[in-house]
């Protein structure tokens, strides 16, 4: 798909969290109906800096700390959105969705459809995903597949500051519920060092990145690697190393799961014939299976070799050797790309 984005000419480098907050602040200034609510989002600025600084610009009515009662406040966001407001509601960790899933998937995601289109729910649900810091099974999941699987929510996963800002503007302006999943490790938080990639140049002005536009983060002719979130950066690192062995890897960042840009993936596979899908979510019934299925449906003939790299179907363990074993690392990606390259 054609990319209609402004050039990233600005030299201003922002962390992913700063870029997200900039978009939110802009939309809140532009539109009185936009407000943000969540636990520890006001004075703390969000545990992962997702609202850092907003309280300096807005009062507690626009940047609201709420009780630890996700069912109530996420449901309240649904209700306010149905009144035509544009709430952004934060679920601190995606892992906590269990306590409030009804409001998410039976109300937020389904009301538009069940009402025959007469009701719409223009809200954004932001939430942190990802492991890599040994916080065990209730605080380290990504769950991309869970949200993308259930119809009625648009699902966004930025991997760079530039994408984070453009996708956030689009999310807030969208008339449908958008689930905006940000990876903790990419935010640029002081206490959780990010890899080099997510901090990028970000234009000061607002711009939108339309949903359903995957981004080719690196061009290559030999193997297509499709991924998202933190693993975009691991895949890019792998690609650098593979280039030393003369394997040219194309790295596709999906950026949104719903809608999904299968066209960009298929075009790439037509060129390379080899596909590796990398995901930090569980292996079964998830993003990896979906991407491979859509390529198989659309261009089976182009496909010479395919493999996936994901979290084996185990809850995220605590101890470092165990967590390292299950979360795909750069080495796992390198090995899999080499496999796919030599097996075809």
């Amino acid at each position: 798909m054609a990319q209609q984005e402004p050039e990233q000419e600005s030299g201003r480098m922002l962390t992913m969290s700063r870029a997200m907050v900039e978009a939110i602040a802009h939309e809140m200034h532009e539109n009185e109906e936009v407000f943000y609510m969540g636990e520890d989002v006001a004075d703390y600025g969000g545990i992962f800096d997702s609202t850092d600084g907003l309280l300096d610009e807005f009062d507690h009515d626009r940047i609201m700390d709420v009780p630890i009662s996700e069912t109530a406040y996420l449901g309240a966001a649904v209700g306010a959105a149905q009144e035509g407001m544009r709430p952004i509601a934060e679920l601190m960790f995606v892992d906590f969705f269990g306590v409030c899933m009804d409001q998410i998937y039976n109300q937020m995601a389904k009301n538009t459809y069940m009402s025959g289109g007469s009701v719409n729910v223009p809200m954004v649900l932001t939430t942190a995903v990802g492991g890599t810091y040994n916080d065990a099974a209730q605080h380290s999941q990504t769950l991309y597949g869970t949200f993308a699987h259930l119809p009625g929510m648009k699902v966004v996963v930025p991997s760079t500051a530039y994408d984070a800002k453009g996708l956030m503007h689009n999310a807030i302006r969208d008339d449908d519920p958008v689930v905006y999943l940000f990876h903790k490790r990419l935010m640029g938080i002081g206490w959780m060092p990010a890899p080099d990639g997510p901090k990028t140049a970000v234009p000061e002005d607002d711009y939108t990145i339309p949903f359903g536009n995957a981004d080719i983060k690196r061009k290559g002719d030999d193997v297509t690697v499709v991924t998202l979130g933190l693993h975009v950066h691991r895949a890019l690192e792998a690609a650098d190393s593979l280039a030393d062995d003369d394997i040219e890897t194309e790295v596709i960042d999906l950026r949104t799961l719903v809608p999904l840009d299968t066209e960009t993936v298929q075009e790439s596979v037509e060129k390379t014939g080899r596909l590796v899908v990398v995901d930090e979510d569980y292996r079964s019934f998830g993003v990896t299976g979906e991407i491979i299925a859509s390529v198989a449906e659309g261009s089976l003939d182009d496909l010479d070799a395919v493999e996936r790299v994901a979290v084996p179907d185990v809850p995220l363990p605590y101890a470092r050797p165990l967590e390292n074993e299950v979360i795909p690392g750069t080495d796992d990606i390198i090995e899999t790309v080499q496999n796919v390259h030599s097996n075809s």
Partner: protein
Amino acid sequence: MFDDMVTARNYEERLQEEYLEGKQPAFDISAGPIPGELHLAAGHEASGAGVCQHLREDDTVTAPHRPHHVAIAKGVDLKRMTAEIFGRQAGLCKGKGGHMHLFDPDVKFACSGIIAEGCPPAVGAGLAAKKRNTDSVAVAFLGEGAIDQGAFLESLNLASVQNLPVVFVIEDNDWAISMPKERVTDVENGSQRADGFDLPGVRVDSDDAIAIYETAKKAVGRARDGNGPTLIEVQVHRRMGHFMGDPESYRPETDTEAAQQRDSIERLASDLRAHGVDEEEIEEIRDNAHDRVEEAIEWAKDQPEPEPEEAYEDVFSNPPSGVTDTEPSIEIRPSGGDD
């Protein structure tokens, strides 16, 4: 009781030291011998100790994300708990759970990092006791921030309507991470929540271990005698950040200072002295606690880390064939929870 409190404080001071190792100069949560989040309970000790004094091994306790003081008071194996926090193979959960997810079925202790979600399982333990006609009880601990959560409110109702032997203990330390309770809770005292569910609600105002002990004695006794649930709220204090590394920029310094002055351990020490316990005895308790803690930490650190392949084990207690990536284990695992 004093012993449990001193052990808990001492233990957490040592954990804090170990936790901070390797995390500097710029605090990096994933570095050092203990990675991940660490929520210490300094200031909460009187609650775990005062309540658990009345519990037996066959009574169930569920704790939240700040569990160590409760675990120690319930008699969780200190060495294996420490090994778990260090992510070692010999840990209570073989390194899979970590500090927020400690399970010790031997003394019926469990905890969860999801707010208020320990309440329903405690109700379940109470239900089992009632159905089996035993006189064991269940206690669920939670923070004052957790009292707005559906799981807690639903649990109060279910325990009440079924007349179950459950004691709910709210540890009020005034803060839920950065949120002071006035900003997020409608009632002044969490114990008022009991009113809506037709069960007794009691509040112990100052962090006074003896008062907590007396209050819990009645509540546990009531439950054991088949007279149903009680909600207790105890005032504790938070001496440090919500988790290690929390900059606490939201918290007035005077509040932290005030909290640090209200030391329940020192308070109990002077109560003991007033009751004629001599200084030597108090020192001996402190020394023993210290030795026990050192021994646990040294032992834990000597244990090996788990092998990476162990990540695939224990997803099921009765694994269907073909679900693990490792060779099927020839060891037969009991299907109950108490191996």
